[in-house]
């Protein structure tokens, strides 16, 4: 994947801080919450919250390693999820464009009728 397509994938996934955490996990392979917290400008607590959401979405998994808990990305699932998110986003684009067309047509019609009425 090129950096550009990475960006596009990440942009499909929620907020920038969480993308940062995911990005770090992708690059690192496996990491603990405290290592991650050392790499980002937000708190360990925020990192933990992001990890919970990512785990809930099934994008990452955890395993115990001695006294540490290590997190890693489920690459296949991440890939599918990002594609599904991008697809859902494009579906909303489609709907919004249809709404735009409908509303503009309705508005143009009202305006035409008003002008006819005034003329």
């Amino acid at each position: 994947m090129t950096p550009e397509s990475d960006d596009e994938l990440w942009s499909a996934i929620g907020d920038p801080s969480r993308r940062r955490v995911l990005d770090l996990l992708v690059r690192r392979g496996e990491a603990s919450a405290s290592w991650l917290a050392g790499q980002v400008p937000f708190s360990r607590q925020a990192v933990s919250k992001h990890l919970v959401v990512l785990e809930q979405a099934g994008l990452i998994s955890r395993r115990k390693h001695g006294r540490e808990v290590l997190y890693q990305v489920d690459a296949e699932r991440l890939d599918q999820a990002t594609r599904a998110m991008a697809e859902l986003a494009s579906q909303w684009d489609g709907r919004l464009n249809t709404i735009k067309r409908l509303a503009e047509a309705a508005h143009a019609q009202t305006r035409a009728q008003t002008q006819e009425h005034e003329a």
Partner: protein
Amino acid sequence: MADFQIEREVVIDAPVEVVWRTITEPEQIRQWFADRVELELEPGGRGLMGFEDRALPLVVETVEPPTRFSFRWNHPAGEEPAAGNSTLVEFTLVGEGERTRLRVVEGGLELLAWPVGDKERFADEHRGGWAMFMDRLARLLAERPGE
């Protein structure tokens, strides 16, 4: 505020009142969303979006004409939709002179079942909800070529 969401927006050459009707009147919603639409336009109101053989129930959350409209759906069958078991679709309309900036946010997507076989937990809880959802969306688009 830590969920997965999609945010999209569009600028429309029509006043907010016109756009409001387009996104809240069932006969108009049928033209951009579902084949069959029922909607009680009030907070707590029930509705459904029907796609061919399937009908998805929804519950209206916010109705503030002509600027905010939101509903919850994609909750498991037999449950009441709430934060934690459904996605929330929120429309925000901002008037800019004769134009309207329409924004849609769908949040709570981490709760949907993603199309993967190895996470039985998700598949069981949502009965393939995400896959069905994507399927529906794809069909919806296919019915409207060129848009």
